């Protein structure tokens, strides 16, 4: 026993002595925040065996480049600059050639047709470590090449940034047309890059606040039937629509729970809005808040244990957090101005909100305890942020001011990432509002 102790002391002393000859340490706490240069090549195919793949090969490469560039974290290198152009690079790229044009990563791929199906093989290379770091084979119908491209972009994004991609996703929104006092509002859905656009409703009835189910290809939205608000469920794949219930008085902003089995919303009863939750199986409605003030816009935390909402119980509209049974209600927003539409990040670490201060509207984020408030973008009017599946980008809508003659008003979708620098307009065929971003398509 004694010997062990002595030996312990002995080695401890030796360790201290050797430590005194430690290396020089240099801390690198800042880096280059420029987008990562990446080379995305056209995917190769055998001319004789797989005809008509010419366009698909180019298009896949274009979609991947566009996805990655839109994230603001990558810069796709112009193909004109490529030095190595032979098919052999898919198996053995000359890394020095790619480093020469400053590519830190390289994407190569090969297309083949197997039994009328398209087989897409892709590889991601680290040109400095000179090794393959990701490879994947996807088989699908040729028409589905666009989705395959998004999936590949997700893989690349995930491997190089460390977080899940968000390109194989869809955006649900309210499409608007017509004069301001007689707007036609239709429910519309499209890929996150604005392709594959289609309308889900005809526009006869007013639609509001569409939201995706986090686990299924299903949406919930609010519509008026004979001037009564109704909450609907719609299966996107089958087109089957279901009425969840008629609610007397006003109903606002229905939203799914994280596992998709409940809908949380605010209902106005007897002139007072409170938060209610409905179990979709039993259709039992439970009241969560009971305050004389207006409580609206509830949103679950990703683990389903907490709920954030806004309320004017303190005199002005502020953000509150409570547990999923309505207990421990606590105000978290502390800044000046009015806060609305809180939405919990899928990553769980932040809450996004709309802030109105001195006549300007801001989209911002704060930590779940209300600290670290950051305003990402400011404009005349904008609201309703919705998170990308990885909790890195927010989509919202922005309106432009009409002139005195009532002209010039428009409404469009925009996205901004958490850095606040990468703001982009999202193209839609008509005016757009109230977006909801899906999780990754399963």
């Amino acid at each position, binding site marked *: 026993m004694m010997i062990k102790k002595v030996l312990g002391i*002995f080695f401890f*002393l030796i360790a201290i002595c050797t430590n005194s000859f430690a290396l020089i340490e240099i801390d690198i706490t800042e880096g280059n925040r420029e987008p990562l240069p990446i080379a995305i090549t056209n995917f190769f195919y055998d001319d004789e065996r797989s005809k008509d793949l010419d366009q698909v090969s180019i298009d896949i490469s274009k979609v991947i480049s566009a996805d990655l560039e839109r994230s603001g974290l990558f810069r796709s290198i112009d193909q004109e600059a490529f030095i190595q152009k032979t098919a052999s690079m898919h198996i053995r790229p000359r890394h020095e050639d790619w480093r020469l044009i400053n590519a830190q990563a390289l994407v190569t791929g090969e297309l083949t047709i197997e039994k009328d199906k398209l087989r897409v093989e892709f590889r991601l290379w680290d040109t400095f470590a000179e090794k393959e770091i990701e490879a994947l084979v996807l088989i699908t119908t040729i028409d589905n090449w666009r989705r395959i491209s998004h999936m590949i972009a997700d893989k690349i994004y995930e491997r190089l940034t460390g977080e899940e991609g968000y390109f194989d996703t869809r955006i649900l929104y309210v499409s608007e047309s017509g004069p301001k006092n007689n707007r036609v509002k239709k429910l519309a859905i499209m890929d996150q890059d604005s392709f594959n656009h289609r309308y889900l409703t005809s526009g006869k009835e007013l639609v509001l606040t569409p939201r995706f189910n986090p686990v299924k290809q299903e949406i919930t939205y609010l519509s008026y039937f004979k001037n009564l608000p109704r909450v609907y469920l719609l299966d996107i794949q089958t087109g089957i629509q279901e009425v969840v219930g008629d609610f007397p008085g006003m109903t606002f902003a229905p939203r799914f729970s994280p596992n998709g089995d409940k809908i949380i919303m605010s209902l106005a009863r007897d002139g007072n809005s409170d938060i209610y939750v409905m179990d979709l199986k039993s259709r039992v409605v439970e009241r969560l808040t009971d305050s004389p003030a207006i409580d609206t816009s509830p949103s679950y935390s990703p683990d389903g244990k907490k709920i954030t909402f806004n309320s004017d119980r303190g005199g002005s509209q502020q953000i509150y957090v409570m547990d999923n049974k309505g207990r421990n209600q606590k105000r978290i927003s502390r800044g000046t101005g009015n806060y609305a539409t809180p939405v919990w990040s899928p990553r769980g*670490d932040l809450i996004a909100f709309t802030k109105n201060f001195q006549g300007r509207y801001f989209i911002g984020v704060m930590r779940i305890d209300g600290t670290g408030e950051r305003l990402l973008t400011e404009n005349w009017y904008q609201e309703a942020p919705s998170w990308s599946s990885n909790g890195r980008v927010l989509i919202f809508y922005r309106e432009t001011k009409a002139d005195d003659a009532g002209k010039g008003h428009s409404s469009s979708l925009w996205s901004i990432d958490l850095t606040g620098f990468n703001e982009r307009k999202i193209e839609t065929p008509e005016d757009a509002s109230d977006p909801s971003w899906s999780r990754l398509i399963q």
Partner: protein
Amino acid sequence: MRSSILSSILLHIAILMMAIVTLPIFNNPDLEIPPIVQVELIEISEKTNVPKVSKKQDEKKEKKVEEKKVEKINQPVLKPKIEKSNEKVKDPSENEEVVKNKIEQQMFENIPMRKPVIKKKDKFDPLKIAELIDKSKDTKTVEENIDDLEYDALDSTPSLDSKLTLSEEDAIRAQFMQCWSIPLGIPFDDTMIVKIKISLNTDGSLLEPPEVLQHERMNKPSEKYFRTLAESALRAVRRCDPIKAPDINRYESWKKIQLNFDPREILRG
């Protein structure tokens, strides 16, 4: 009783080991006082970066250049020294050239080659040191010749003050900062710091592949964020290869460096 003797012995060994590891007299041959002549050269080099060139020296240089031109035919680098040592022994004359060349060759074979670590651009001729030593008895000659020398690479042994200066550290840091594309998608985590050991050649290029010190975290499936971060740091190291080398006189202090890539403040947001 037995255990106390044993513990006493072990503790003594421990103290002895500490002494061996820590005390410079046992451990650090680098700190040995260099020969007197070399110390003098270092001091002068620090004071005078650019040697003064007088008319006399110019003439001398011209003579030397002429002499070298003749010698370069056979032994481009090493002959100057031999030539000069011959000058001391004999007076040069055209008739004795053949004999002289033979003697020179014999002497050349006996001269040990020194290979100090020198940058390519250094014009320093190591043989001039030996030449200087030969003439060291004559103080006047030594002083004159010192002015002729270039000192850039004289110090192949590290001086006592061989630590990297703060500005040199900053210069290295700035280079890696430029090369490092931070993976901004990584969620904040207090353990997100990558330690990489690099070994450098005298020209600042990598001597061996960079090594992530936290090997065990690299291949854990649960540590995919760490792997992404570590890979980005490794890319930065390779992208920066070769770095602009700090003062070669302090090579001992920067030939091995630990780089701590620490994005925590950035990721915290």
